[in-house]
Structure formats: structure tokens, C-alpha cells
């Protein structure tokens, strides 16, 4: 690609790398070639819309500019210098508009619509068409999240190409052919896929619109706040559209190294949980008849009383979804102010991963990717799944080692699989060692994942190869940032207190975690910092309202080790955590600023080498790799899988719980997302199903230790023998070994 070609566009000489598309070449020369269907991220150009017509000298007819690449000596005339091209574009637009309803005042796209803009610039001023336009029923719900208006559709095929070529879900298709083509799903089934929302952003007209944003605001009434999604550790860059102090929609903000401009439906559609009815809007104190609202002064008094009363016997349950600053603030208050050092965070990340870090986009260019772990990548960090698909389309080999892997492995066997890979006699390990573009991904919980991964990468010699990288996918958005900030807040370490005087539960993930609930049984008092009433009732002595990531200023570290900046999209209905943490810290004689920027500065001096907030910018860069330091042998947290006995009772199956992408307290509070949640079903391997005479769709009953759950069975050919895989939310109180019988 290093050789350059020289060509002339509109009498301007341009020099670009060979193979550059004509649209980009023209853009480099400051010339616009208008497009609708062209979108390089969707793969090769299709030339469906004909908007990009240009005249190329030596070619008899007008050419679709987007389908051409720059050639040496090419002479191109766009509409601005060629009357033929201008005429062609005008004609194209006239055709496109033949059946377009021009209902711009009613259309949600109006004001930010490429068709509107390009018609204004290149189109005819009036129409010659006098016959009635095609009409369809509208809007058609493609899913509860997406509305389709077929009258507005110009058949550019961006959405169907996304569905088939990027997300590879193949659910949004073009039905019929020619003039009768229309975008559709199968029958009445909704477009149910983790990345469906991207088609809304891709649509160059108002044909696919968000039902959440429907008629909510117009482009001149909104403010877009650049921030980072706080729902998974990928940290996709997003833009929160706000109007009148409310988030109205979330869109992708292309960070080519992190998300490539895509965003999953969880990140895009869960914002309505900010306005949930059961949101905690004031501090609550346990009174005689349950939780009673109190003033902030009274709440802080009570908090001080509880903190002092515990006499340092405090355990903090961190969520891993806090901003780094909030975690640090908690650390300053509890560790420095009270000498309480004990924290639980159910994650196993490791700073040693930094020796082999690289942007997520490295995956897209890889030739060999090995994913270990029992969880689907899409459930943990969805955007990584898109990168993996991109790599596979480009010819990479993807090997998955796990309970549903291409290489089957026993449940919880990820650590062993990695050890085997790093061993000298491993065939796959040998290829990883030899490759310059190899990736290792850990997609599962526990097992000391981060540290094991770093060790394996070190053993495979990844550090010296910039095209090789490792990615550990934690369960929580800012798992690494929180762990590091907590550690940085004070120096001393103390053993776990017993009995626990006070349990501080920070955040909703921790509040919903059964192991934290079990811990609370042993604690004499509990302070819960949570957003929702249902997570607060029944166990907390004091409830302090929490804020959501869209309401926070601060930073978060994503799974790559990239520090990214969160911006407050909307003012939360309650004071944010740092505001009252600083007030509380004052009472214990430790200094903590209520401003995230100041806290970051202090923290940055300790752990980020004095990195400045300004240096993060809108698209944060990834710091250089750090020299490898062998991780500490014991991981930060205990994993449930680590101490499961190898052999289980004969006839029973090992229960493999997984946390689906569309789950959790935020998703639960968004009615229109419910259709994306997993079915009530249990996956069984072909062998286990046959042995029990179970077929897909049969009602089965799962029993263990006196509890039982009834759900539908699904035979999963990829699943290893001896495992029953089901979503966490359906597993209820089932134990590790379950008996599966036909109901």
C-alpha cells in the first residue's frame, strides 16, 4: 500500500495510496462526492443509490464513484465541474424522491437527514411527477425498538448489509425485487439481535427510526454530550442526546480503535432506566416501618454514626461500575479516614495485562484468535464480538476453548487451557508463538483470568509483537479502574474483619449480587449506595442514592487499559457520590474534593503517572505497553468456579450459569428491551438430551437440593457433554449439580 497514485479530480491533482476509494480520494482533495449507500465499514461498496455519479475521462458513461478506486492518471469530474455528472445526480435524486413522501416536518430524521441535505444541494428544485406516490402501512415495528417507514426507504441496503455483513445476524432482509423491494424481517418476528440499533444510525433517511426517540426532539433542540458507555468493560464511545435535561437517545461516537462506530443495543437503549419509577431520589433510613426518607444532613449524621460505630470493622462491596474517582473517593474515606481496608470486587483483572495491551481494533487485523472461557464474548463485551467477526471475515481463524467452544473444554477449565497453550508441546500454542498477529481473549468469570492471561501471553512472547495482544473481559464496566483506585487510596493492608461491623455496598451490581447479600447476613449494619428502591429494601440501615454513568463526571478504564473520560450528560436528580463523600470525608478529617477533575488529578499522580484530563480528549489514546511484571500469585477475588469439585454425581449435570447481555437492573427497567432478554430455556448437549429423550422445545425440570425450575429445553450441538447451560436470571437457587428430567 505504500506506492502512491496521482490523479486529477475536478482539475485538482491528488496523490493518495493505491487502493484508496474515489470518495475518500476526493475528500482528501477537499471535494465532496455525495453518497447514500456508501459506507466503508459495511464492506465493499455496492453502488446501489447512484448518488455518487461522476464522469471519468475515457469511460463512456457516468460511473458510480463509490465503486471505483483511485488509479494512476485518472481524470475525474464531479458534479461541480461536469454538467453530465450534475445532470446525472439531479436525475438520480429525482428518481429517489419519486416515492419519498417528503414528510420532513413529521419525520424524526428531519434536520439531520442526508437525503434532505443532498437534495437541497444537488437535487432538482421541484418535481415533475404528478401521479400518486406508493404508500405503505406505517410505522411498522421491526422490533419494539425500531420503527420502519417503507415510504421513506430509498433502498440503499445499508441496514441489510449491516445485518448480513457486520453483525452477521441476517435478520433484516430485502424482500422481493426491483421496485417492489422492501426491508423486512421474517414474518412478524422482531429484529432480535444484540446490535440491531445500529441500523437506525446507518439509515440515511428516516426509514428506520428509534421508537424511544420517536417525536422526542428535533436536531436544533438537542445537546449532544460526548461520553463513554458504562454498561460493559469495552467502554464504547457514545454521544448522549439530551433535551430539556433528559437523555433522549444514545448514539455511537466512532472511536476507530475501540468500537469502530458500532454500539450494542444495551448501550444504546437502556438509558430510560435513569427515569425509572423506583429510583431512589432521597436518602433513606431504616425506621420502625421500613425505609423512611430523611434529609441529607440527617443521612450524613446517620452515616457518620454507622461508620464510627463499626470501629474499623468495615467491608466494602464494590460494583466495578463506579467511576475511578468514586472508587478512589470511597477508598479515601474508608481506608484513609477509617482504616478499613477490606473490599470485595468479584473480578480477576490484572495490571500485568498492560504488558501486552493493544487497541481492540487489533483483533480485526489478526490471523489467529483464541478465546478461552465459558461465557460468550457477546454477553460480556459485545463490541469485541463484532471485532472477532470482522477478523473471521478477513480470513482469521477463531478458536474458542470452553463449554461451547470449537475446542470443547470442561466448565471452568479456562485457566488450564491457557496453561496448556503456553506449554512447549502445544500445537495451537506453537502457532500463537509463531504468529505476528495473534490474539488471546479470556471470556469468563473468576479463575484469576487477568493474571493467567498475562502469564500465558508472556510465555508466548506477545510483548515484543505489536500485532499480538491479550484481552481479559471483566464482568463490570470499570473493574480495573475501580480495583486500582481502591488500591491507590491508601497503603496499608489489613485482614478481613470478623465479625463485620458495617458492610458498605457501593452500586447496584454489588447490591444485586447474591454473594454480597450473603455477606450482609454476617454484617451487623449495612449502608447501601444504590439507584433503585427494590435493591435497597429489606437489608440496608441507610440507603444513599446513587447516580448512573450517564450522570457522572469522571474517568473509567476499559478492558484494554484505556482511561476514558465520562461526561455528565444530564444532571442527576440527587447529589452525586463525590459530593457527599467529600462531606463525609471532612467529618473524618481526610481531604477529598467534590470535583471529579480534582480527584482525578490526585489519583493520576499516584497511578497514571500524572496524566492530565485534557490529554484524554474526546478519543482517548491507549498508553504504551508497560514492561511485564509477574502478577501476584493470588488473584484479588475468589471465583465461584475456582473451587468447584472436578467430579460430580453420576446422572447429574453441571449447571453453567451465564449472565446474558440483556440482563441486569438497568435492562429490567426498560420495557421496550424486554423482548431481547433470553427465553426461559436450558441448553443441553446433544448427547445429554438424547440420553434423556429430550428434544428442543420440550418442557424439562431442573432439580437440585430440593429446589426445582421448569423451563424449555434447547439442544445445543456446540455444548460439551455433562453441562446444563442457562441464564442466571432463570437459575434461581439451583446448585452446581442439577438433575434434568422431562417434565
Amino acid at each position, binding site marked *: 500500500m505504500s506506492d502512491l497514485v496521482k490523479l486529477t479530480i475536478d482539475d485538482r491533482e491528488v496523490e493518495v495510496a493505491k487502493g484508496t476509494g474515489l470518495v475518500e480520494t476526493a475528500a482528501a482533495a477537499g471535494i465532496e462526492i455525495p453518497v447514500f449507500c456508501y459506507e466503508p465499514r459495511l464492506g465493499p461498496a455496492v453502488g446501489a443509490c447512484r448518488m455518487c455519479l461522476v464522469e471519468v475521462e475515457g469511460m463512456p458513461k457516468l460511473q458510480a464513484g463509490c465503486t471505483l478506486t483511485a488509479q494512476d492518471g485518472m481524470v475525474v469530474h464531479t458534479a461541480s465541474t461536469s454538467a453530465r455528472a450534475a445532470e446525472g445526480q439531479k436525475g438520480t435524486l429525482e428518481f429517489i424522491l419519486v416515492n419519498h413522501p417528503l414528510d420532513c416536518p413529521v419525520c424524526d430524521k428531519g434536520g439531520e437527514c442526508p437525503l434532505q441535505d443532498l437534495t437541497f444541494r444537488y437535487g432538482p428544485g421541484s418535481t415533475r411527477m404528478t401521479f400518486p406516490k406508493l404508500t405503505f402501512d406505517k410505522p411498522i415495528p421491526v422490533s419494539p425498538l425500531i420503527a420502519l417507514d417503507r415510504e421513506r426507504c430509498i433502498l440503499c441496503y445499508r441496514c441489510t448489509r449491516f445485518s448480513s455483513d457486520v453483525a452477521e445476524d*441476517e435478520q*433484516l*432482509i430485502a*424482500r*422481493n*425485487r426491483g421496485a417492489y423491494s422492501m426491508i*423486512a424481517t*421474517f414474518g412478524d*418476528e422482531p429484529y432480535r439481535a444484540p446490535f440491531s440499533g445500529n441500523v437506525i444510525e446507518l439509515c440515511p433517511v428516516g426509514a428506520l427510526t428509534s421508537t424511544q426517540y420517536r417525536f422526542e426532539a428535533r436536531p436544533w433542540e438537542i445537546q449532544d454530550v460526548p461520553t463513554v458507555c458504562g454498561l460493559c468493560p469495552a467502554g464504547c464511545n457514545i454521544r448522549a442526546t439530551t433535551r430539556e435535561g433528559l437523555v433522549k437517545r444514545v448514539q455511537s461516537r466512532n472511536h476507530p480503535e475501540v468500537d469502530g462506530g458500532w454500539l450494542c443495543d444495551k448501550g444504546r437503549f437502556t438509558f430510560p432506566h435513569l427515569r425509572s419509577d423506583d429510583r431512589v431520589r432521597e436518602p433513606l433510613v431504616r425506621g420502625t416501618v421500613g425505609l423512611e426518607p430523611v434529609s441529607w444532613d440527617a443521612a450524613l449524621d446517620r452515616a457518620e454514626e454507622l461508620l464510627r460505630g463499626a470501629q474499623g470493622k468495615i467491608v466494602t462491596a464494590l460494583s466495578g461500575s463506579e467511576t475511578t474517582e468514586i472508587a478512589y473517593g470511597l477508598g479515601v474515606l474508608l481506608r484513609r479516614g477509617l482504616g478499613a481496608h477490606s473490599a470485595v470486587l468479584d473480578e480477576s483483572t490484572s495490571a500485568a495485562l498492560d504488558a501486552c495491551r493493544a487497541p481492540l481494533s487489533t483483533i480485526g487485523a489478526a490471523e489467529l484468535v483464541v478465546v478461552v472461557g465459558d461465557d460468550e464474548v457477546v454477553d460480556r463485551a459485545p463490541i469485541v464480538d463484532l471485532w472477532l467477526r470482522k477478523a473471521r471475515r478477513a480470513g482469521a481463524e477463531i478458536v474458542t476453548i470452553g463449554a461451547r467452544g470449537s475446542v470443547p473444554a470442561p466448565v471452568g477449565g479456562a485457566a488450564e487451557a491457557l496453561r496448556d497453550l503456553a506449554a512447549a508441546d502445544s500445537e495451537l500454542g506453537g502457532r500463537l508463538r509463531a504468529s505476528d498477529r495473534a490474539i488471546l481473549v479470556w471470556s469468563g468469570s473468576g479463575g484469576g483470568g487477568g493474571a493467567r492471561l498475562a502469564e500465558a501471553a508472556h510465555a508466548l512472547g506477545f510483548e515484543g509483537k505489536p500485532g499480538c495482544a491479550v484481552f481479559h473481559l471483566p464482568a463490570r464496566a470499570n473493574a480495573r479502574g475501580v480495583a486500582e483506585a481502591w488500591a491507590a487510596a491508601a497503603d496499608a493492608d489489613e485482614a478481613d474483619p470478623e465479625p463485620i461491623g458495617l458492610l458498605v455496598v457501593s452500586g447496584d451490581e454489588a447490591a444485586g449480587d447474591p454473594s454480597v447479600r450473603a455477606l450482609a447476613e454476617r454484617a451487623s449494619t449495612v449502608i447501601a449506595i444504590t439507584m433503585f428502591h427494590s435493591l435497597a429494601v429489606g437489608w440496608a440501615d441507610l440507603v444513599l442514592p446513587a447516580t448512573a454513568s450517564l450522570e457522572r463526571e469522571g474517568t473509567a478504564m476499559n478492558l484494554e487499559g484505556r482511561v476514558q473520560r465520562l461526561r455528565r450528560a444530564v444532571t442527576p436528580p440527587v447529589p452525586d457520590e463525590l459530593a457527599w463523600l467529600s462531606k463525609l470525608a471532612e467529618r473524618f478529617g481526610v481531604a477529598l474534593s467534590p470535583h471529579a477533575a480534582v480527584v482525578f488529578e490526585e489519583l493520576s499522580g499516584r497511578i497514571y503517572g500524572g496524566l492530565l484530563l485534557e490529554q484524554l480528549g474526546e478519543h482517548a489514546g491507549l498508553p504504551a505497553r508497560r514492561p511485564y511484571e509477574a502478577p501476584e500469585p493470588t488473584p484479588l477475588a475468589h471465583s465461584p468456579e475456582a473451587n468447584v469439585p472436578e467430579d460430580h454425581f453420576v446422572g447429574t449435570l453441571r449447571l453453567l450459569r451465564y449472565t446474558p447481555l440483556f440482563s441486569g437492573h438497568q435492562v429490567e427497567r426498560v420495557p421496550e428491551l424486554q423482548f431481547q432478554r433470553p427465553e426461559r430455556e436450558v441448553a443441553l448437549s446433544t448427547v445429554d438430551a438424547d440420553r434423556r429423550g429430550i428434544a428442543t422445545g420440550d418442557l424439562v425440570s431442573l432439580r437440585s437440593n430440593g429446589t426445582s425450575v421448569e423451563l424449555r429445553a434447547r439442544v445445543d450441538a456446540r455444548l460439551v457433554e455433562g453441562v446444563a447451560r442457562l441464564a442466571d436470571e432463570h437459575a434461581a437457587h439451583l446448585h452446581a449439580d442439577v438433575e434434568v428430567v422431562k417434565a
Partner: protein
Amino acid sequence: MSPTLHDEIREVVKEYPEPRSAIIPALRLAQERHGGWLPDEAFRQVAEALDVTPAYCVSIASFYDMFHTEPVGRHLVEVCTNVSCAVSGAQRVVEAFERELGVHAGETTEDGNVTLRTVECLGGCGWATVVAVDNRHHLRVQAGDVGGIVKELGE
């Protein structure tokens, strides 16, 4: 699902480098089994056998003329109305069929016996007008021949 259709499709798949390449023969098999057209159930069966989505099957089936996504009659009468046939009086043939059958082109008779369609070129321009009855070509059809064809279908 009927196991034989699945098996038949899997048999066809062996001829191709990857399963999805077999979609057209697979849809044809499914159409034969579902009374000449493809209900949603047929798409699900094909999708399951080829490991693709039902939506993908619909996109293929709705593109090609020989697949029917709406119910058709027991017999299918297809009249070519492309250029050669048109100049040889295809329109009169169509009208004759419409009169004899009492339906418009594109419709099925009330008893569900015959579906009348107009189609593009059937590859018999030298023998216009061409009428395909249940995929069997009748050549040089004139409006006067229509009565006989319809009578045959009624039996």
C-alpha cells in the same frame, strides 16, 4: 418437522462447498412438499437444515419468480407476456384465461384448482405465445386454444 425434508436437504448440501449455497434446491424441495408454495413453516425448516436464518430464506425466495410465498392452486398456468409473446397476442391469451377461469392474472380460482399468472420470458420466443401449465410448455397458444387447456385442468 418432517425428517425426510431435512434429510433430503442435507443430501443436496453435500454437493456444495458450504450449506448456504444449496438454498435454491432446498427451497425447491420445500416448495414441492408444501403444496407448491412456501409457508413460514417451510422457511423455518429450510433454515434449520441449512443453518441460516429464516429471514435469509425469505429474501432469496421472494427474489426469484419460481418460488411462491402465497398459496397457489393445484395447477399453475403461466402466460409469457414478454416482447415476442406480446406481439403474438399474449394479452388476448391472458384475457381468454381470465374469462375461462373467472379470475384475474395473479389470482387463484375459488375452488383452489388453478392459479393464473403472467410471467416474463419462458425461453420460447420462436414459438410465441408460450404458456406453461404446471411447468409444461404449450407452444403457439392462441386465444382459441385456451378453452381446451382449461378443460384439461378441470379434469
